[in-house]
């Protein structure tokens, strides 16, 4: 009741002041105001020290001044005028001139040191932080038009690397924190925690729902999440309401997208010339395209262009309602996102709704979060870019919107398979529901009990429909091989059901400048993933694509369950807010390991010292805050499929003994398992410096770190001679084991600088990330583990190009070195010692070890996709009602494999091949086309297709205009801003393929451009409006 009274008093005071202010203001307009000199001193609320350089502006004018070195100011102002005091890092102060002296106390704004940072199982003030934690707020996240928050934070946090390997609508970018931390597919991904609920996969939160993202980068910060956290932790806090009047916000944007990169392909004339070169050197099995495509010269089909959609629309509308009173606040946000893809047949639509409510009393505080997501993704046909490369330009273009085709030529299979793919429908629908309730109950003044109960339900339904169609030749005869008589339907259903229960006790006590916080807790998590796939063949009609209209096929079905238990404890201690110490220990148990290796313990310790709070620290005007941090922490990973520690026997390995339909049932052990499978562990060391200059005008955070991973888990392919059976959709032919050690070390720098240029307020910020990744050892001496197949169409017949090998970064390209082509007869004779069937014009491989034969031992390390460094740079400018911001993101020193080029070479479609070696072009180093598509000239494992993948991209340019609040007030609108934005408009790079930003969650595939869905440039217009 007392609080309510105060509240009431406060409002009436404010009303009174406002009325008075308005009166005086009006008076001052009508009566010529009397000018006077107003003086005073500006001091900081925290330390009582004067603040130099504070800007003063008389409201409604461009008259201003600033404080001197002692915080003193003097300005000519009329009685009744308002002086606005602004200083970076401090809250603005408005003073109504009522006397000649006004001393001003400025408070640090919430973006400063008292900013609350989410740290996992609680929050800390920024000044208390002892680890390496980066943070990004909603206003920065909302600058990128995307359904994926990961791509919105690219380049915004040092040490947090975001790569968009597949830019198809609805796909998420990969986030890697402080380098590749796992050999496994998906293993380097961070742990996501959304309002206290953990997610191993990207939780796909709608960006508009996010209030802030904190990233726990070092082991000391992350170890509170123990075995889940070896890839770092991303803490997502969603928006909450504030007490006060109900606020309605509408944000909308609409835009168009266009792919502005490509790969040079031969046109009809060039294709025929390449074909001519090919058969100059091959006498048998000659293939004349024009003999079978009589009107081929009339066509010059641009298949790649035909498969791309220019000006594909993208739009997003988000409406939120928030407010609250009497301790109860709410925020409800609904978002609709719709993106048409820039590639044929791809689009994404998502509806999301989040409701967060919060209730606080003296003893209790309760938070309930509910979120519902419904999305529908249509995917472009698999390998579409590679198909577009493969198709010959002398074939007429095809309209896939029919079920009957007339295709001339004698091998129409070639084109009809492609037409069939264009007709395919492939999509997935995701429904997800997440909810949790968090409760804190104050048992005593210092003691709080907390509970967090959450449930997360995720259902993904995949559908693939391959319609039937008929292909006739020019004489009207049906070609059965080219036709698809058998319409097929495949349905997949994956359901993930997770629950989490966490109980914590917090103890907090301050005595004699000692501040102590204790946390103990335990957590239980259950996760169950059930998947089945079924389908039908010979669907009777394309118009009735349901199971009942076809012949059922055999279904697959599996259930993966994982349970885990954790016990955790944390101590936060500081003395006089100068010396900080944090110690954490977590003990985790996971059902993914065998009985003897089930538990792991992950301790950590970190400390910080705020130098600037020491009496000897003199330079407080320039360096307003200086802190050094040190952390040592351990984390682990249990991110493996369940049951992997035990070998299995599979059924259905049958044989039809007895003839005809008789079948004898067989069982077999398809592969191996390591019963001694154990946790992967990670020891992380971090040293950091936080500096604040001129009270937040500029800031610098530098961290250096080293992380040692041991007993890295990887599902390796045992030698083929060990006889594992590959089975569709299963990984029996791989073998999960602890294979080696890995080190990441690096430096991260984040800085910002604010400066006003006249009435232009400018903010510059930048990030720099340099990480060195190195495989320290593998469990077998001299071992190398290959992976990374650039050619997705012919994975089985092409060589992998990346390795794990001690001494090199993960995913280092290890390929044959080549030295141009064989040009003379002498060179040929010499080379035939190595390769007896070599011809002139063949690529010359180097026998680097000189043993007279070519083998893996001759392959050399040729760089990796992991860059030397990456950087981000942002400028935000405000001028009156205008705002302009630009973000740049760059990657330097990354080597990538141009798989699309390799495929175009092997398919004889790359326009380079026009200039390949022939007797008439005897100096060319472009190898002569050969009919064998596994020919050494085009096989994957050479340096021919490696390229520099460095790039600098303009991520965003946004120009906004906010309408005058006085004008809006009349319309009953609080805020209205409209903006224009260009996203990814320009990329500077030497890369000759589609886009150098490639990536994969498989560390050995990360540098492969495999005809990935390329990034589009997007041009948008949007508005945000608040009532």
């Amino acid at each position: 009741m007392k609080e309510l009274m105060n509240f009431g008093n406060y409002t009436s005071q404010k009303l009174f002041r406002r009325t008075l202010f308005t009166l005086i203001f009006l008076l001052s307009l009508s009566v010529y105001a009397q000018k006077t000199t107003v003086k005073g001193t500006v001091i900081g609320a925290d330390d009582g020290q004067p603040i130099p350089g504070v800007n003063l502006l008389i409201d409604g004018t461009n008259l201003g001044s600033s404080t001197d070195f002692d915080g003193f100011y003097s300005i000519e102002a009329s009685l009744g005028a308002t002086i606005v005091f602004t200083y970076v890092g401090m809250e603005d102060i408005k003073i109504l001139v009522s006397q000649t002296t006004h001393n001003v106390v400025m408070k640090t704004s919430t973006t400063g040191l008292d900013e609350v940072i989410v740290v996992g199982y609680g929050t800390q003030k920024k000044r208390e932080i002892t680890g390496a934690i980066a943070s990004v707020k909603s206003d920065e996240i909302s600058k990128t038009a995307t359904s994926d928050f990961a791509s919105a934070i690219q380049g915004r946090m040092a040490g947090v690397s975001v790569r968009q390997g597949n830019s198809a609508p609805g796909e998420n970018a990969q986030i890697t924190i402080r380098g590749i931390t796992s050999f496994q597919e998906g293993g380097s991904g961070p742990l996501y925690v959304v309002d206290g609920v953990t997610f191993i996969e990207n939780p796909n939160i709608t960006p508009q729902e996010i209030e802030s993202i904190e990233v726990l980068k070092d082991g000391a910060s992350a170890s509170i999440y123990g075995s889940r956290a070896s890839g770092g932790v991303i803490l997502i806090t969603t928006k909450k309401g504030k007490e006060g009047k109900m606020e309605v916000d509408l944000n909308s944007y609409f835009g168009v997208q266009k792919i502005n990169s490509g790969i040079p392909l031969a046109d009809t004339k060039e294709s025929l010339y390449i074909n001519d070169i090919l058969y100059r050197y091959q006498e048998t099995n000659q293939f004349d395209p024009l003999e079978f495509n009589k009107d081929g010269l009339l066509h010059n089909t641009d298949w790649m262009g035909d498969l791309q959609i220019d000006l594909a629309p993208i739009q997003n509308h988000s409406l939120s309602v928030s407010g609250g009173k009497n301790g109860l606040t709410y925020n409800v946000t609904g978002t609709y996102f719709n993106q048409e893809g820039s590639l044929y047949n791809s689009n994404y639509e998502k509806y999301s709704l989040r409701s967060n409510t919060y209730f606080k009393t003296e003893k209790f505080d309760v938070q309930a979060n509910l979120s519902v997501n419904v999305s529908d993704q249509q995917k472009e046909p698999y390998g579409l870019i590679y198909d577009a490369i493969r198709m010959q330009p002398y074939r007429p273009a095809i309209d896939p919107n029919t079920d009957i085709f007339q295709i001339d030529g004698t091998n129409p299979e070639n084109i009809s398979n492609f037409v069939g793919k264009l007709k395919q429908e492939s999509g997935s629908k995701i429904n997800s529901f997440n909810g949790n309730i968090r409760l804190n109950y104050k048992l005593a003044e210092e003691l709080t009990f907390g509970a967090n109960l959450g449930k997360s339900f995720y259902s993904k339904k995949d559908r693939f429909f391959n319609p039937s169609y008929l292909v006739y030749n020019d004489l009207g005869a049906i070609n059965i091989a080219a036709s698809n008589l058998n319409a097929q339907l495949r349905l997949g259903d994956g359901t993930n059901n997770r629950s989490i229960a966490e109980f914590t006790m917090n103890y907090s006590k301050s005595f004699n400048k000692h501040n102590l916080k204790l946390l103990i807790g335990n957590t239980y998590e259950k996760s169950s993933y059930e998947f089945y796939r079924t389908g039908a063949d010979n669907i009777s009609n394309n118009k009735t694509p349901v199971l009942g209209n076809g012949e059922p096929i055999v279904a697959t079905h599996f259930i993966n369950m994982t349970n885990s238990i954790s016990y955790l404890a944390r101590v936060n201690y500081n003395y006089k807010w100068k010396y900080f110490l944090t110690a954490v220990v977590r003990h985790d148990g996971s059902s993914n390991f065998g009985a003897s290796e089930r538990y792991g313990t992950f301790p950590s310790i970190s400390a910080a010292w705020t130098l600037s709070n020491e009496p000897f620290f003199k330079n407080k005007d320039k360096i307003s805050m200086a802190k050094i941090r040190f952390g040592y922490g351990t984390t682990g990973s249990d991110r493996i499929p369940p049951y992997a520690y035990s070998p299995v026997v599979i059924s259905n390995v049958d044989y039809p003994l007895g003839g005809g339909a008789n079948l004898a049932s067989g069982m077999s052990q398809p592969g191996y398992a390591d019963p001694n499978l154990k946790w992967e562990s990670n020891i992380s060391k971090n040293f950091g410096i936080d500096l604040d200059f001129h009270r937040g005008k500029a800031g610098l955070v530098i961290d250096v770190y080293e992380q040692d991973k041991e007993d890295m888990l990887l599902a390796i392919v045992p030698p083929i001679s060990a006889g594992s059976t590959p089975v569709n959709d299963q990984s029996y032919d791989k073998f999960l084991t602890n294979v080696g050690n890995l080190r990441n070390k690096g430096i991260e720098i984040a800085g910002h600088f604010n400066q006003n240029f006249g009435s232009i307020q400018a903010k510059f910020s930048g990030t720099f990330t340099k990480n060195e990744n190195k495989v320290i050892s593998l469990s077998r001496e001299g071992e190398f583990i290959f992976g990374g197949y650039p050619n997705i169409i012919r994975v089985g017949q092409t060589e992998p190009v990346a390795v794990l090998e001690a001494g090199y970064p993960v995913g280092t390209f290890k390929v044959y070195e080549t030295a141009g082509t064989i040009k003379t007869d002498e060179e040929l004779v010499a080379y035939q010692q190595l390769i007896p069937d070599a011809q002139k014009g063949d690529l010359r491989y180097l026998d680097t070890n000189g043993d007279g034969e070519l083998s893996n031992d001759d392959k050399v390390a040729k760089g990796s996709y992991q860059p030397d460094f990456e950087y981000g740079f942002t400028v935000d400018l405000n001028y009156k009602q205008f705002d302009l911001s630009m973000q740049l993101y760059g990657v330097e020193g990354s080597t990538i494999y141009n798989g699309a080029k390799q495929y175009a070479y092997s398919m004889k479609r790359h326009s380079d091949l026009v200039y390949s070696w022939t007797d008439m072009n005897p100096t060319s180093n472009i190898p002569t086309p050969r009919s064998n598509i596994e020919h050494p000239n085009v096989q994957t494992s050479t340096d021919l297709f490696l390229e520099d993948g460095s790039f600098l991209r303009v991520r965003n340019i946004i120009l906004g205009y906010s309408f005058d609040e006085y004008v809006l007030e009349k319309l009953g609108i609080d805020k209205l801003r409209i903006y224009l934005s260009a996203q990814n408009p320009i990329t500077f790079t030497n890369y000759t393929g589609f886009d150098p930003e490639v990536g994969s969650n498989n560390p050995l595939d990360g540098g492969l451009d495999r005809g990935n869905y390329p990034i589009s440039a997007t041009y948008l217009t949007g508005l945000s409006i608040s009532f």
Partner: protein
Amino acid sequence: MSQLKTYRLFFIAIIFVTSCNKDFLSIENPNDLSAESFWSTEDEVQQGLIATYGALQLNGLLGGNAAIELPVRSDVGRPNNWNANAIGLNTLSFNENTQIVQLRWRDAYIGIYRANQVLSNLSNVEITDNTHVQIEAETRFLRAFFYYSLYKGYNGGSVIIHTSIPEMRSDFYKKPSPATKVYDLILADLEFAYENLPMSYENSADLGRATWGAATAMLGKLHINEHNYEVAKAYFKEILDSNIYALTSNIAHNFDEEHEFNQESIFEVAFSIEAKPGTSGGAADGPTGSEATSRSRGLATTQGGGYRTVMPSYYMTMLFKNDIMDMTNPINANRTGTAKYSVRASSSIAISDDDNSTMYQLSSDKGGAYNNNEASYLKKFQNWWLESESDQSISGINERVIRLADVMLLYAECLLQTEGNYIDALELVNSIRIRAGVVPLLEADYDEVSLMEHIMWVERPLELMFEGHDIRWEDLTRWGKIKEQYERLADKSYVVIAKELHEYDPNIHSVTSDKILKEFVEAFKVYSPDAHNYFPIPSTELNSNPDFLD
């Protein structure tokens, strides 16, 4: 008040403690049985043996890929103009990345691993001695069969040997054993099978299991390829003398679905389109696996719904065209019209002017397109009597791996090599020719040398083309005649006029030079026994087994 507080604390402590449940972290795999609890009953080892048979169907062994691609390396097949895999094999530009090179290796080792699972666990199971010996003999026959495929296929016969299940990770990484060791292992396994396998099975449900005859024929093949003609001869003779086997009345019965496991069949790999037809594609194991083979569509004509990836070579086509029918043979009584080609030709390949043949229920010239200078198409082991091959790329025709005609010709070869007995050898050849409906050889025209030439260049290709998939290559390497044959073939020129293939004769054919057709020109140019008699070790093995070369 303080009591209440204590109570609350107690309540919370209870939550902490009670949730600690030990079983919480023990989860049983609901998807597959654990191997540790398997292999304890007779039924289970029998199922392991069935899985070992199942490996025979795999794509690299007797499944689709091997059936389609292997014949194109030897003189019996030619590729279509655009299939890069087949052209690569045909021009001998295959390498360690070539699909069939990888598949055959992988699939043979899958079979070996399965066989070793049975053999390693057999002694832990309580069964009668007879059952033990029977299971062991069948399994060792199959293991020998897989090793034989590797021994004849790769690296001069020097391949990796596994005779037990690798336990530790280090057990996986093995270096290749010398070819002699591989040979010894195959020999020991086959001899055990030879001594312990039954002549036949009483129960028809066991049709398809390995028999004494299969083991004996394999022993004969193993020895003849080592030029141990005397030993081989004895084994082949045992088969002929056993009176278990006889030539079928019609050669076509060896290539169709209706007459599987017939009197001539010694070892077959069974496929079925009825039992687990599977989805598109070939025989695969596991939950969505299939018991059918994908060979049919790859080899069928456009009219049959296929890709004719590989067709009979021009050489092979001319052999059939020139194989003169014996109109006095009653087998030819029903043959009408101009009746140019034998029953053997009509059931092996489609030639456009074969009046006594149909192809996909059309006349022979309509059953294939005969464009792109194509001269003939494969009918052997194809479903040519249907309207088309299955649109799901599957077929249920069993692959006859060893049949009596093969053994008879090998025995004839042994007779010639060991004792120059061309009289008996000629009789064997003639019994095959008579069944084929072609004119028998006259004793007067042949001696021990010319009969051997006839067997090498006429009879074996005509009778056995596209069978067992690599028989022809095995033959050619045994004889050491690959270079000679490529030279002969590269020298020939052909023309296709009105869908008919002719040897090019400048005096008769007035075609422009670019219509003159050649084959095996590249193969002849590049062939060297060291590089091409065997496949190289596939890159998949080298990349997964760093110890291989050290």
